[in-house]
Structures are given as structure tokens and as C-alpha cells.
């Protein structure tokens, strides 16, 4: 810890003692994170904050094959997590009903898995945010809060990318 950080820590402790309460972390906007992926490897391209406190969608019903991104603080403690559909999946459209009849066959989606692409995540913004973790979950994830059943497979530093 350098001199400045020591001073900072000391003053925060003094403030807590004098005021008698911990420094509350209040949400002050919405954090937008632009990620790119390359064969399953995610990196931060950009991040910015908008002043509105937009609600964060949980993606609870996104399915077991969804990706789980976790926002953590500087001690890597979870602030929140969201589930999103795998952005690398692109589905071609089935034939229209009329075309399928004309052509005489059913038509599948023609699913394509992109190797590279991008994804925007939306999180609540707090002044102690630090990391975005891509999580994997051990089994059928019934309980989002069960940290013991999920582990980080990739850590991205919002301060250093």
C-alpha cells in the first residue's frame, strides 16, 4: 500500500468513527460495459456511465446455457449478477409458412456460432465497482445467490483492460 492509499484508508476509518456509520454505497447511475469476445474469451472494449438508474434485468429465465456475468467490488465481492443469452449464437430464420409449402419441406434455423462478436452489459453503477466475472455454474442453477455453486472462469478489471 503506498502513502496515498494509507492516508486514504486512515481518513476513511476516521470518517466512519466520527460519523458512526459506514460509508453507504449508493447507486449513482447505470454502468454500460461493451465487451468483445473471441472464441469464448471476453475482453472489455469500453465502459461508461449514464446518469439514469435504469432497472437491471436479471435474465432469470434465460436458460441453463446462458452466460452469467457478475459485477464485483474491489474486494471481488458480488454486487449483482445477470444472465444473458449466449451472444455468439445467431439463428437463421425458418422459411415463411408460405415458402415452406411452396418448397415442400420444413426449414430449420441454420444456427451459426460466431467466433467473434460483441455484447453490451448493463449494471447498476456504484463507486466501488471493480471487476466483471464470467461465471460458470456447477449444476442446474436454481438459486442465483448460491455463490458456492458458481465459479469465475474469467475476470475482467474495469480499471485496467
Amino acid at each position: 500500500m503506498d502513502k496515498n492509499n494509507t492516508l486514504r484508508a486512515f481518513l476513511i476509518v476516521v470518517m466512519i468513527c466520527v460519523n458512526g456509520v459506514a460509508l453507504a454505497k449508493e447507486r449513482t447511475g447505470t454502468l454500460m460495459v461493451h465487451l468483445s469476445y473471441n472464441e469464448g474469451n471476453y475482453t472489455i472494449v469500453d465502459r461508461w456511465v449514464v446518469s439514469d438508474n435504469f432497472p437491471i434485468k436479471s435474465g432469470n429465465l434465460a436458460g441453463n446455457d446462458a452466460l452469467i456475468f457478475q459485477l464485483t467490488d474491489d474486494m471481488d465481492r458480488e454486487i449483482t449478477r445477470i444472465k444473458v443469452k449466449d451472444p455468439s449464437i445467431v439463428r437463421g430464420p425458418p422459411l415463411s409458412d408460405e415458402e415452406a409449402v411452396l418448397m415442400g419441406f420444413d426449414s430449420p434455423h441454420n444456427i451459426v456460432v460466431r467466433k467473434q462478436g460483441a455484447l453490451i452489459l448493463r449494471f447498476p453503477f456504484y463507486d466501488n465497482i471493480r471487476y466483471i466475472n464470467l461465471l460458470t455454474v456447477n449444476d442446474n442453477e436454481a438459486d442465483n445467490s448460491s455463490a458456492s455453486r458458481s465459479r469465475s472462469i474469467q475476470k475482467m478489471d474495469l480499471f485496467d483492460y
Partner: protein
Amino acid sequence: MKGIILNLLVCTFSALFLASCVEVDSTDPDPTPTPTTSQYNVETISGRTDGKGLDLVIAGDAFTERDLGSFKTAVKEFAEYLSNYEPMLAKQSKAWNIHRVDVISDTSDLDSSTDTAFESFYNCDGHTRRMICLDESKVQVEMAKAVPQYDFIIVIVNSTEYGGAGGVVATFSMNSYAKEIAIHELGHLLANLGDEYSVGGQSAPYSEPDYPNITINNNPTTVKWRHWLNDPYVDLYEGGMYTETGVWRPTNDSFMRTLGQPFYPVNLEAWSLALYSEIGTYYSKMPRSSSPSHRAGTELEFSVELSLGSQVQRVNWYVNEVLYQENSTSFRCCSTATGDYQVRAEVSDISGAIVSDPNNYSSSSIAWNVSVN
């Protein structure tokens, strides 16, 4: 008062001292809110702009300035198509906020050497002519600037040839059948519905799929849609999830099997639960405090702003667990109270679309512990 002033002085002094001694990291995320800087005109054609509800952004590609009128018409028609696709969707339309983003391209010719705004092109997998892809990264970044609260992005591509795609950005062309693609894709994206059609040459999965409308369990007493088996449309139909055997779907046909078909009960229930799961049962409550107070002899007004609306939701009001008022979004009480009491609003879905909700996404209970002064 002295304590507050002392605290303020200490905080101010500490903050000033901190600011002078802590070096600002140049890579620190800007703590100052960044104004949205979108180069595009945005119009909210239905719903709200505060992020409550599901925000569907519709942009266009290959629309020149001259084509903007037809783009606006296409968006309007799609919004109407979405809300009228099923009678229930019309009743749930309050859940959706639809935003049109006017993106102007230099050309409307997808085969031109000049790129369109989002570089859409057909045949993007090399062998499926109707599959349209585009620069998803650019679309997402631009839409995040224009409508940062977006949940789904649809890009309408200015071509009359049938085509589209689904994924983090869904596309469909101006072909009259193509908008059905977007409804089908929302089934995947919002409700995690699986494809119900079959194509030859694929095997059934070994484990139970997590799609609400696909199963490998053909036992009617345990199948995941057993609570719908009294419905005349619902049964166990073999075939789905790309395979003809060993997989069952709930209805003979649906919009997840054939474009343009109805949802039918099992898919509609999954869609409705997904709405509640994402946006909750209500947007706001009054009083905001859970511990309000009022003077004896006066009343307090309580209210709940429903997420999907009173066509499909009901609020019942209880005072100290005694039912006082049914089916109203507001309630006034209790001038005769002589002591503290509790008011509770019970919000539930009355649409009939939801029969089983084990996670209680579609209902909630809001309590106020009221003090009488």
C-alpha cells in the same frame, strides 16, 4: 444540530483532503455520469423511457433519408403486429416500451460497394440465402447510446426479399412475412422457448431440456406442462427441437414450430412468466416508505402502479390481514385507527394465462407498517 454540523465539517474537510492527496487513476471509470450522445433521432412510440418494463429498440438498415417514411411505417406496423399477435399480448402491452431509432444509410442497395449503416447482408452463413447478418457490435454500441435501457434490439432491413436472423440483435426484412421472424425470436430471447419443429437426422437430447415447451418426458402425470393437459389444444405431440422422435412438444403447432401460428397456452404462460420475471409485478408504490405515519383522524392514500396493468392484474387491500378492498390500484385508510396498523397490497395475475407459477413471479405482497401519531 451541533452533531450534524460537526459531521458535515468533518466530511467536508476529509473529502477535500482526500481529493488533494489521492491520485486519480486515469483508467478509473468516469464517476461523473456521461451524457448520452447519440447521433440518431429517437422516438418512443409506445410506453415509457425510465427503463421500467421491457424496452424494445427498433432501428433500420439500408434506409436512406428518402426511405425514412417507409421505415417509420414499418416500425409502426410491427408494433401493432406485436401487440395484436395474440389477444393476451394486447392486454400485456403496457409491459413493452417500443423505441424507434432513425438510422440513415447512404445507400439502400445491400449489394452496393457502399456500406449501409450497419452493413447488413444476406447469406451470411454461406449457404442460407435468407439469413441476414450485420455489424452487431456497431448496432449494440449505437443503440446503447441512443436507448441505454434497451433489452432487445430489432433491425429492420430495407429489402423486400424474405430474410432475417435471431440473436443478440434480431433482424428481419421488409418482406410481408418476415416480421413473423421477430415474434419467433422474441419467443427464444424473452421466454426461453425452444424450437418445436423437426428436421431429419438429429437425435433427442439425453437430459431434459430447460425449455418450457420441449421435453423428453412423455409421462402425462409428470410432464412439465401437466397442469395444462385439460386444455383442448394441449397434449404430448412427438417431435420438436429438430428431431422427430424422443422429444415432445405441447401443441400440434405453434409460433415456435411454424411462423405466424398462435402461441397456445404453454408458450403463452412461459411468455407471461418471463414478463413478470424481468419487470416485476409493479413499478412503484405510494407511500414510498414502508413505514409511513399519519395523524389520528386523517387518512393515508396507498397506491400501486402495476407493471402489466389492471386488465391482467388485480390488487386486493388488507388492513391487519382483513380484506378491506378488492381489485383497485389505490386505497385510502384509516381515519378511525387509534393505534399502529399494517396495510398490505396483494398483487396477482388474473389473465388466466398463468396456471402454474412455482417461483411466484406473477404475484407479490407489499406491506406498509403505519404509525398513527
